């Protein structure tokens, strides 16, 4: 990344470099499911799976376990499906799914770009999105 690009990087305005705008981001709850599955695979491959994984893996596993708002695989799938209806960038989608803001004002504070970009989600749409998310949590 050139110096200039680096100075311009700002996730709040969704300036995070093209390669990352296109990259698939993952929510904490999704990573938690993937790591759990990975760990089970390792258990089958070796008797001492903890010995096979790196420190980076271990620390991340602890983190996503604590910071996953949704645990049930169906709920996790539904969260992505609901958020996908609002033309969000991958990055925005995952920030919302991770932080689960409770009000429209909080959502905009967490992801200012949902208001700045041309598509302009109105408050009503954001409110509906947050309501749908909290329903999943309730019925999980």
């Amino acid at each position, binding site marked *: *990344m050139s110096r200039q690009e680096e100075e311009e*990087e*700002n*996730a*709040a*305005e969704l*300036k*995070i470099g093209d390669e*990352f705008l296109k*990259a*698939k*981001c*993952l*929510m*904490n709850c*999704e*990573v938690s499911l*993937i*790591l759990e599955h*990975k760990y089970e695979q390792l258990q089958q491959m070796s008797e001492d799976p903890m010995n*096979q*994984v*790196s*420190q*980076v*893996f271990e*620390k*991340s596993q602890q*983190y*996503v376990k*604590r*910071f996953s708002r949704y645990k049930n695989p169906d709920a996790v799938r539904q969260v992505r499906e609901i958020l996908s209806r609002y033309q969000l960038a991958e*990055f925005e989608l*995952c*920030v919302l799914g*991770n*932080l689960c*803001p409770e009000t429209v*004002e*909080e959502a905009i*504070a*967490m*992801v200012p770009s949902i208001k700045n970009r041309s598509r302009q989600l109105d408050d009503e749409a954001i409110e509906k999105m947050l309501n749908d998310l909290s329903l999943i949590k309730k019925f999980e």
Partner: protein
Amino acid sequence: MFLKTQLSWNVVIPAKNLDTNGLMLQKAIILRLMKNFADKKATKELGYFMALTTLDEVGEGKVRPTTGDVLFPVKFSCITFKVFRGEILEGVVHKILKHGVFLRSGPMENIYLSHQKMADYRYVPGETPFFMNDKSSKIEKDVVVRCIVMGEKYMEATKEIYTIVSLEGDYLGPIWRS
């Protein structure tokens, strides 16, 4: 933020691990790739290398004439963790110093929140020191703090990413959740 990426690397399999049995070869490639992946730890562009998810493609092996080892070009998918300036992050306080606190988030432990970036909090010394503001909001060990990323720097020597964060902004600060 966790990212899912596909990468193309080369894996070298020593001649002694080569076997006419294809299954053994596949396993040798996966194990070697996993080791390379863990050793790599982190890069400036992609952040921390967390987990290899799938081996997507194994190209044709090329024999190295001097050693007889075989080099396989492989494509695989993996998860990495990188933070971006302006990103809102939730971390856990793990160290309290007079001039600020350190948080951990994902695989990162070097996330620094300076006293200057939480101006309304005062340092309270003692056996277990903490920070507190006028509204009795406390930042102590093991508390979850929501903060905004001000900057990050990758150091090649340690292969660690050092991040500075701030509490200046709406809806930032220590959080309690049931």
